[in-house]
């Protein structure tokens, strides 16, 4: 599964994208965020510490927390868009 990060989330994670293989228990966008947050546990600047500030897109469409994921999906995380 390909993950993309934008804006301050990208800066805080120190990377723009990565490939991950979450366990089968990760079925939705919310599951994926929780799993990514747990992976960061203990870091001083945890990027996923406040999931309410983060929005997601799955395969380039805005996606709510309940959106189901499939292997091979492109999942992006970013702050609320601020427009141009």
């Amino acid at each position, binding site marked *: 599964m390909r993950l993309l990060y934008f*804006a301050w989330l990208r800066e805080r994670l120190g990377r723009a994208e990565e490939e991950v293989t979450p366990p089968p228990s990760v079925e939705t966008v919310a599951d994926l965020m929780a799993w990514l947050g747990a992976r960061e546990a203990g870091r001083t600047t945890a990027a996923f510490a406040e999931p309410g500030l983060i929005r997601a897109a799955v395969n*380039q469409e805005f996606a709510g927390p309940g959106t189901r994921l499939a292997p091979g999906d492109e999942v992006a995380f*970013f702050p609320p868009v601020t427009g141009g």
Partner: protein
Amino acid sequence: MAGAVVRIGAADFEPGAELRSLSERTEGAGGLGCFIGIVRGEAAGRPIAAMTLEHYPGMTERAVRAIAEEAQNRWHLLGTTVIHRVGRLTPGERIVLVMAAALHRGPALEATSFLIDWLKTKAPFWKKEHFTDGAEAWVAARASDEAAATRW
């Protein structure tokens, strides 16, 4: 319907050439509405040296094209052009161009307003401001912009 022309990228644009191009591909139009956005030298009262626009390549183009096509259907437009720049831009630089061609002035100007309101509030862009004192900050979504976009 000539369809929507959408370009997202770092390159500047030439408004006169874009107007000519829209006009040529929308024969029969009675009116062209147009808006050009320019980077201002301040943000919330603080002077800025530059701003950086980040986008999501692929998704941003798709979202902008979808809204331009929605505008075309809603106002029966003969054609639209939306150009949005990304990357680092300094005050005085052009950042966005929206144009809509229609049979009459009302739809041309309403569609232009609709598109720029959407672009400035709902489009997948993230904006960082670089202040003249060296500080920089990502912009948070603004309530007043949300209000402008929801009137449509």
